[in-house]
């Protein structure tokens, strides 16, 4: 089976001299320049054109090029790329330049891929709609009145619009999977630790994952393999085997699939998403695969556990942002006042809400009752997954309970925004590989497997492509 792949098709055109790399990069830059959907924080035009010219010269000399060589891609604006503005879509870092390059991005550069854009997102990853940004709300690729999703909204929209061949997002509680679902593209949150977080601005370190977004499963596989691996600069990484192309082309090993009953029975789920999800289940059953309904934690418990731990971690991680060594310092009468004014003026309301919440749960009197209990709940959630994967090979779920909200609605009601993450955060807490596929429901389906079984996730995605 020959799989669809934009990367392979462009590679072939470059090698056969049907298309020059310079023309390819120029075409994408011209598409990005009007910034139609507010996806662009900065363009990397000069460096991209120079790299493209190098690739063209190499081809002209008759030298062979690698599969990713000359392929233009986008980067969520929370990754360090030496010499580029890295703003986290925040006022605090609006003039900050990376002094070094993130490991995951460096591996793509080493493979010859060409970064062309730093992409709009929720500030520091704090949001589910890409409206919490100083660069203007990201507009959905299908309907510009709706949000692009978040926090990697700019990345998902760029891929969906064809402005980048693939983009690298970051997923802490659903920030790759949900915008992928909202914009009808593939988005993978790999197993935690498969890809180094070094050079990814930390939000919640225990669930932060680097994640590729692309239009095909094969492109996700190629980019995942390139970025994976142990890195001494992130000691939570582990050595993984590359996933071979032929390993994911046929489904022979998935015998049983599970889904969470309470996700489907929830009052919050949109009736069409529910009906479409149940119809997808029937199609899977019709292929002779056993489907089991599984028990799981209530949505409010999942969301509350995730946000409690994520806020605690982000309060610690963002405490370094005080304007002393970098960032938009605002001078006041003394050191403490300078810290306080700098942070008060430069952080968004949502970021402040999360920092304050995190410091609350870490405080004496609150930590036992909330933070430690949140950790215990997380353990129970992980144990539940381990039990589930003794019974089924794959778990499928909707990506979101609802359709993308209109721009402006999420900022008015933060609690509703937190609750809209109900179907993605559990897999983050479990550190499991989960892929959004643009099929099944209007915001897609999530496919999850046991830890380090990213290969099975991609394999089942290929199977679903022809099944539903």
């Amino acid at each position, binding site marked *: 089976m020959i799989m669809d792949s934009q990367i392979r098709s462009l590679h072939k055109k470059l090698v056969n001299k049907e298309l020059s790399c310079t023309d390819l990069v120029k075409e994408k830059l011209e598409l990005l320049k009007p910034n139609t959907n507010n996806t662009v924080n900065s363009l990397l035009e000069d460096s991209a054109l120079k790299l493209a010219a190098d690739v063209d010269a190499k081809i002209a000399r008759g030298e062979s090029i690698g599969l990713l060589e000359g392929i233009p891609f986008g980067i969520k604006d929370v990754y360090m790329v030496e010499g580029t503005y890295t703003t986290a879509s925040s006022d605090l870092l609006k003039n900050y330049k990376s002094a*070094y390059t993130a490991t995951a991005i460096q591996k793509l550069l080493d493979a010859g891929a060409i970064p062309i854009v730093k992409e709009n997102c929720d500030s520091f990853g704090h949001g589910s709609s890409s409206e919490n940004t100083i660069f203007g709300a990201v507009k959905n690729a299908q309907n510009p009145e709706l949000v692009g999703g978040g926090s990697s909204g700019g990345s998902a929209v760029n891929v969906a619009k064809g402005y980048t061949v693939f983009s690298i997002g970051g997923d802490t509680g659903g920030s790759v999977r949900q915008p992928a679902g909202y914009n009808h593209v593939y988005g993978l949150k790999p197993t935690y630790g498969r890809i180094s977080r070094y050079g990814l601005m930390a939000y919640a370190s225990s669930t932060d994952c680097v994640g590729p977004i692309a239009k095909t499963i094969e492109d996700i596989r190629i980019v995942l393999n390139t970025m994976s691996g142990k890195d*001494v600069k992130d000691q939570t990484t582990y050595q993984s085997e590359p996933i071979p192309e032929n390993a994911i082309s046929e489904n022979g090993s998935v015998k049983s699939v599970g889904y969470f009953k309470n996700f489907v029975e929830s009052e919050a789920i949109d009736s069409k998403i529910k009906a479409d999800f149940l119809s997808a289940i029937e199609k899977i059953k019709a292929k002779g695969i056993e489907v089991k309904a599984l028990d799981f934690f209530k949505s409010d*418990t999942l969301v509350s556990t995730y946000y*409690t731990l994520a806020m605690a971690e982000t309060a610690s991680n963002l405490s370094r942002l*005080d304007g002393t060594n970098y960032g938009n310092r605002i001078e006041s009468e003394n050191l403490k006042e300078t*810290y306080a004014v700098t942070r*008060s003026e430069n952080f968004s309301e949502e970021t402040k809400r999360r920092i304050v*919440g995190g410091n609350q749960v870490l*405080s004496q009197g609150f930590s036992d009752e*909330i933070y430690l209990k949140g950790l215990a709940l997380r353990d129970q959630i992980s144990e539940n997954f381990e039990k589930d994967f003794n019974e089924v090979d794959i778990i499928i779920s909707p990506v979101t309970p609802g359709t993308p909200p209109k721009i402006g609605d999420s900022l008015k009601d933060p609690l509703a925004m937190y609750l809209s993450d109900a179907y993605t955060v559990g897999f983050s807490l479990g550190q499991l590989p989960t892929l959004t596929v643009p099929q099944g429901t209007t915001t897609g389906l999530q496919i999850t497997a046991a830890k380090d079984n990213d290969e099975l996730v991609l394999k089942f995605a290929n199977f679903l492509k022809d099944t539903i």
Partner: protein
Amino acid sequence: MSKIMTVDVLSSIKGAQPSEAVSKLFEVIKNAHTTNTSSFNTNNNAVSVNDLRDDVVIESSDTEKQIIKANFPKQKKGYLVVSKVIEE
């Protein structure tokens, strides 16, 4: 000796108050039932002592040093300026 510190001071954010939306999330945790609150092993990402990175100084490149200096918010006559640290 305990000193009460409010969240605005703890967070270095002026006038910060606990948010209603976030408090609702915390209420869910307070009311949740847990089977075990004494051990946290499932998501253990601790690194084995046999697998630590080498304890060596790695020299930054000149470019990296230049960018770090350029990012510094305030400079005066070749010095990097910070607020006075000891004030109280």
